[in-house]
């Protein structure tokens, strides 16, 4: 079995995934009443990525072979697919004269943001508890629950940043803190997985070779179980952080464009006004 052969034959026929993808596209089309803007590209990319995650050789590898492939699936479902799909939704325009705090929906923002953050982080950490991780590989219903929950938590996580209702988005600087702290969270987890001798998902330590591709993976690609776990931890850490990092830069650009800078300063009453005599502190 060569790499090329594997990549061309290991695709899954998964009717549920196909149905979900097509349904999403159809619903979107109906909603947009057939008028597509550039935004539609994002949604299409999201749906395509969704399909790839669950039906391409990535899924084959994740299904009991490679911990790193399993991790890649998680990251795609939690971080990329929801973000892309949210970007594809038409944004509710905001009247320029309103300040950020007057926009509709602004009041519940901190609570929603906190919830979204915890769900996003929780989703990442929860499914790496060894018991849950193994269960998801062993039991197909837990597996489906895992996918659905990852997607859901991903949507909850990204809504405060790229959600369609502009008024409900976090202000850019808060968004930067939101993403940065998420990056820290996934870094800590990534470091633990990369360096820990503890087996996160013990099932991957001894993969059952249903398809006869173990030699390809371990010899040709060099992915022994030890390297595989390391790679999985690194994926969680580096590319995931790069996603947050791209988000941070985008928020930074948005901040510069927006006309609302953060509030100046409520000075402590003891600050001397210019010209007032100072006292030696």
């Amino acid at each position, binding site marked *: 079995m060569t790499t090329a052969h594997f990549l061309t034959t290991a695709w899954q026929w998964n009717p549920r995934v196909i149905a979900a993808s097509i349904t999403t596209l159809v619903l979107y089309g109906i909603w947009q009443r057939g008028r597509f803007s550039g935004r539609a590209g994002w949604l299409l990319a999201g749906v395509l990525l969704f399909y790839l995650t669950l039906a391409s050789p990535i899924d084959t590898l994740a299904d009991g072979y490679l911990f790193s492939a399993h991790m890649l699936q998680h990251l795609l479902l939690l971080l990329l697919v929801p973000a892309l799909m949210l970007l594809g939704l038409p944004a509710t325009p905001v009247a320029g004269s309103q300040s950020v*705090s007057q926009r509709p929906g602004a009041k519940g923002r901190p609570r929603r943001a906190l919830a979204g953050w915890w769900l996003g982080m929780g989703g990442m950490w929860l499914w790496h508890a060894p018991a849950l991780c193994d269960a998801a590989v062993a039991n197909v219903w837990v597996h489906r629950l895992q996918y659905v929950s990852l997607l859901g938590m991903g949507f909850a996580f990204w809504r405060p940043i790229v959600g369609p209702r502009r008024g409900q988005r976090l202000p850019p600087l808060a968004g930067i803190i939101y993403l940065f702290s998420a990056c820290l969270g996934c870094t800590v987890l990534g470091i633990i997985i990369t360096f820990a001798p503890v087996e996160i998902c013990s099932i991957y330590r001894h993969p059952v070779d249903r398809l006869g591709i173990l030699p390809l993976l371990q010899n040709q690609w060099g992915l022994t179980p030890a390297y595989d776990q*390391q790679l999985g931890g690194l994926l969680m850490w580096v590319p995931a952080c790069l996603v947050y990092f791209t988000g941070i830069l985008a928020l930074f650009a948005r901040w510069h464009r927006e006309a609302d800078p953060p*509030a100046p300063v409520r000075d402590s009453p003891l600050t001397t006004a210019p010209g*007032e005599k100072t006292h030696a502190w």
Partner: protein
Amino acid sequence: MSATAQAVSREESPLPGGAGSGLYGWVATVDHKRIGILYLLTTLVFFVLGGVEALLMRIQLVRPNNTFLSPDAFGQMFTMHGTTMIFLVVMPVLIGLANYLVPLMIGARDMAFPRLNALSFWLLPCGGFLLHYSLLAGGAPAVGWFSYAPLSETPYASTSGVDYWTLSLLILGIGSVAASINLIATILTRRAPGLTMQRLPLFVWMVFVNSFLVILALPALNSAIVMLFIDRHLGTHFFAPAQGGSAVLWQHFFWAFGHPEVYIMALPAFGIISEVVPVFARRPIFGYEFVAASTVAIALLSFGVWAHHMFAVGLGHPMDLFFSATSMLIAVPTGVKVFAWSATLWGGAIRLTTAMLFAVAFLIQFTIGGLSGITFAVVPIDWQVTGTYYLVAHFHYVLFGGTFFAVFAGIYYWFPKITGRLLSERLGKVNFWMALIGFNTAFFVQHFLGLMGMARRVYTYPDLPGWGLLNLISTVGAFLLGAAVLVLLWNIVVSLRHGRLAGDNPWQAWTLEWATTSPPPAQNFDRVPPIRSRRPLWDLAHPENPDPPVGGRAARDGFVVEKNRVGMVSFLITESAFFLMLILAYLYYNSHGMSGPAPESLLNAQRTGLYTLCLLASSLTVWLAEQQLRAGKTVAFRWLLGLTMGLGGVFLFGQGREYFRIFHAGVLVNSNLFATTFFTLTGFHGLHVGVGLVALLILMGLAGAGDFKSGRIEAVRSIGLYWHFVDAVWLVVFSVIYLKLLL
């Protein structure tokens, strides 16, 4: 424009005055301008010391098999040179410049926390003195500035040099973190009206981002050196492999600090260049937003590249590849800056003053250093050149040819503002050319020495072809560079007394510090000019062609930025990083099985759980106390405060009993790595609880004296926040140690 420029008479000191006169005034000052000058003068002294240490090494290396310095003396020299230059020169000089300039550039009267500012400064000579005292007290540390374990453990470094190194770095680290917290609070809360964050001068923006780097990176160093100190004095084995410790963990922890550290030394220098180049090219910086964004990118990425110092450790190809990728990525935002500065020159009207000469040299030299850095990111190349003089050449090009040349540029640029007199351009040009030739002679040849196989940190070398000649050239260059520094010192001394009077704005620059006298009065500004763009003074001077307004109108947003809260949050960020490192160390050591005492036999989760509930309850009571004070009910406030202290005290009592029980079972901190990590983690947490109790006691006293009646309760809210933090940390510690989460 401010009032008339004051003529500085001969009788008056050319340096800014403040409350208090003479020497006492300087020692007791809390004025950021004086503190900035103190920083600059102190770093000058250490610069000379560090330079002497370098020249002594270059004398030893001038020819093969030289015997000028013994191997041990040489080891002390390179350790002291590196530590001095990094911690006592480059970091503080940048903080000192920031200290002086940031309040002026944002139109503020002083830093947010003037007394903290003074403390930050005084920790510098303290730490520097402690470090150099080791030379007299048994020998300076001789383990290299990054002090790899186990070479730095007691069997191999038996003098107290490493202990002096450790303690002085802790002191200096506290000073740096305090200064950075101060800068963050100042920049967020002290800006003049109209100066939105998007209108910040790039120097200020870079110092702002840099301050976050400092507060996140220094804790990694602090945790590592604390663990080393405990190893050396309490017989533990964090980094002693023979007894189960890990030498590689030291490397990870150190470089997790060490890599952001080099960006800490670079970003403010980038800020200086971003101010100097536009002014002397007579054009605004090209692409402000991209330069500002690239600063953020560099700061973020700098935490993800540290293991590129460890490509030869054998971490495995996946790790090497990932760190190689991030290290290459970080070159992109740096390149964006270099292109932006170069584009600023293009189409300008360049005036080659000394400051500009140094800035232009920076551009080329930093690029050379950065490119040699890229070669290190290519892992197979690193496998050949790491640990050689090629590496020494690389970091001197970025740190001296880069950062230090930027500092020289900054000195020539801002000296008139600080002292009221211009530095001599004639002497300046001599200084520049000597420095340029000396620096490049000294360090360019070192690239070749490394490629020819000369390892670093060697006190001598065999008589191989070309080695002697290149080392000789390098030594000559180093001495020329030393002479250049003497010329600078002479220039400063001469110009202080006979320099041309500068006036408010000798360079026709555009940022706010030039809108006041030189030197500025005690309150900095009599009146701050209107600020509508990034170059307020350009707008004033060119009302027919002002800069397009950026950064929008001031708006009332949800964010309330108050200095005590900002200060406390920044402090908590740094403490979180510290605890994170200790928790990671705990997880690392306890995820392997080990012999000796184990948590199952020693710890009782239920009992400690009860004490945990007490601590959590104390969070509730302190929150209630805050509410009561806000409502004006001081008596209830004091009762609740007392209850909080009581609950905290109960928790500490419980911890104490736990410790006592463990000692009684014959288990001490050095019994095994579980005991070591347990005591270290819970010990530091307990220390934080204790400090919190002291803070609450002080609040109690202040409340008794009637301090909070006016409704100013920021101090209470900040201490409350600290208390919640301590509880949150305990929750994590409890989960990890007692509930064995993640293990």
